[in-house]
């Protein structure tokens, strides 16, 4: 086992989604035509409770990010009255009030948007970096591969939170949503790169790539039309899980004081503000924590379900 595989051990389960892109040979009893990987996967997904729970949670949080007014029951999160400071949850105000006397339900609900935007934006940049660098390294091999792999190793040796912490502290990116997303992506793309690289290496020696080459297809065409589509399944699994991981990392950075800044509404800021009041008003830490955890869980469950469905090796 090489160091690379070893370092990827944590993501082994993700990588297990390796497919050669060949349609599954299983034949439907009623319908004699072959099922594609994706229709087989869908059949599996339908039976998986993780898929339904994760999907439902994802839909709820998506709706929360798009239409926070509805979930906040029309309350403005910035309309505060100090006389309500730190009030406990009640029938009229389910999550109680924060220290400034703002309705906490509204604040927690409005926090969903930033978290989701950062998670999705960061994962898009991760994919962009990972797919481009990984595909080039895997496809061209040789010196290019060695060089790109070493650069990846360098980034891999730096913990995500640490790297993002230093980048954000320099302030070169600013302190907004985009800055946090880019900082996270900058230190989070390495696994995607290795995933794509290993997929491309596995796929490029297959017969249909040789066939395409024999027909005179260019490198670019082979890469884009033949290799990448067949390497996409494990990347999809990885992407879903990573959105959850990045959302958690954003909350952590914001909590540490280098992520989003007030007056932005963010779960990380809410937890940070609540931590000193853990004794007297534990609900201030509790509610954003629960919602943050459920959001992360939604993506991780969905990723687990997708992996189970897309990994032919695990099929009975």
């Amino acid at each position, binding site marked *: *086992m090489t160091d690379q595989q070893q370092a990827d051990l944590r993501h082994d389960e993700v990588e297990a989604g390796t497919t050669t892109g060949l349609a599954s040979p299983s034949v439907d009893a009623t319908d004699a035509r072959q099922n594609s990987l994706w229709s087989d996967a869908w059949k599996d997904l339908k039976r998986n409770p993780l898929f339904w729970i994760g999907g439902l949670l994802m839909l709820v949080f998506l709706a929360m990010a798009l239409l926070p007014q509805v979930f906040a029951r029309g309350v403005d999160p910035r309309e505060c009255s100090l006389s309500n400071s730190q009030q406990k949850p009640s029938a009229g105000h389910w999550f109680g009030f924060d220290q400034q006397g703002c309705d906490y339900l509204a604040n927690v609900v409005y926090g969903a948007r930033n978290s989701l935007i950062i998670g999705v934006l960061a994962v898009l940049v991760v994919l962009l970096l990972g797919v481009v660098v990984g595909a080039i390294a895997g496809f061209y091999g040789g010196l290019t591969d060695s060089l790109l792999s070493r650069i990846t190793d360098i*980034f891999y*040796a730096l913990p995500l939170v640490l790297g993002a912490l230093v980048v954000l502290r320099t*302030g070169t990116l600013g302190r907004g949503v985009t800055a946090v997303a880019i900082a996270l992506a900058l230190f989070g793309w390495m696994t995607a790169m290795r995933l794509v690289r290993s997929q491309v290496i596995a796929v490029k020696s297959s017969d249909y790539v040789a066939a395409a080459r024999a027909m005179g297809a260019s490198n670019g065409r082979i890469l884009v039309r033949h290799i990448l589509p067949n390497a996409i399944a494990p990347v999809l699994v990885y992407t879903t899980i990573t959105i959850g991981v990045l959302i*958690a990392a954003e909350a952590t950075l914001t*909590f540490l*004081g280098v992520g989003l800044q007030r007056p932005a509404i963010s779960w*990380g800021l809410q937890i940070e503000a609540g931590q000193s009041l853990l004794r007297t008003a534990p609900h201030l830490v509790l509610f954003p924590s629960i919602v943050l955890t459920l959001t992360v869980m939604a993506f*991780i469950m969905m990723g*687990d379900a997708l992996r189970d469905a897309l990994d032919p090796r695990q099929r009975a």
Partner: protein
Amino acid sequence: MGRYVARRLLLTIPVLIGASFLIFAMVYALPGDPIRALGGDRPLAPAVVAQLRDEYNLDDPLVVQYAKYVGDLLQGDFGTDFRGREVLDTIEQRLPVTIQLAVVAILFEAVIGIIAGVLAGIRRNGFLDNVVLVSSTIVVSVPILVLAFVAQFVFGLQLGWFPISGIGEGWYSFVLPGLVLAAGSLAYVARLTRTSVAENMRADYVRTAKAKGLPRRTVIVRHTLRNSLIPVVTFIGADIGTLMGGAIVTESVFNLPGIGRAIFDAVRAQEGAVVVGIVTLMVFFFIFFNLVVDVLYAVLDPRIRYD
């Protein structure tokens, strides 16, 4: 094997240099003038500023600064922070705390993770298996940050079992932060053990062991477990390096004076030398443990040969 280790050690050098240069360059880009900040409200005399800037090589180009830094580092000199304190002193003082935390975390990870994994794996799809699967999915999804506060609130404030801040009570103070730091990896160890045990339970040699009438316990402990633990042991080894990253959050929430906390404080105070020094050390640990694990892998599994 010797050649393999030598080659790996050589490959380590560019990674170590690259990672520390990356951090060095970013710290160099930090806004504000740390020397001016030293003076506080009273501006320092220009001559003093010039002398300090010269002392810390602040007027050299980035690459020259870095080269001078590495030159000192190779002689065991980590430099000093802007208050004249040796960075090595800071590390010597803080590192034991983080090592204690990591030891506690690894213990939790190994003991609870492996027991849960074995219980789940020996009867796949049984009740315990499902309990372990569901709880590991949940634990993996809870951010360390959230877990830390839940632990503080429930076990510290409500039940009063463990201290929630500082290291005043020796090893006992590390129980809660150690558990929090270990949680994610613990769930992963449980899953890895489960998969590995379940796979080996179907292996030929296990069937043979059963067929020759060995008691179930012996079959599991002597035959299945020994082979199943190879990937688990290697994961735990590699995780020692990874735990350092998680220590930043854990040490901040539990107020432990370790290197995670030190690096966080140093980033805030723009103490470039401290940040770069500790990061270089962390990267070194990370690479070192990964190398140890790769070698360990060949030792544990005779089928693997590197040469």
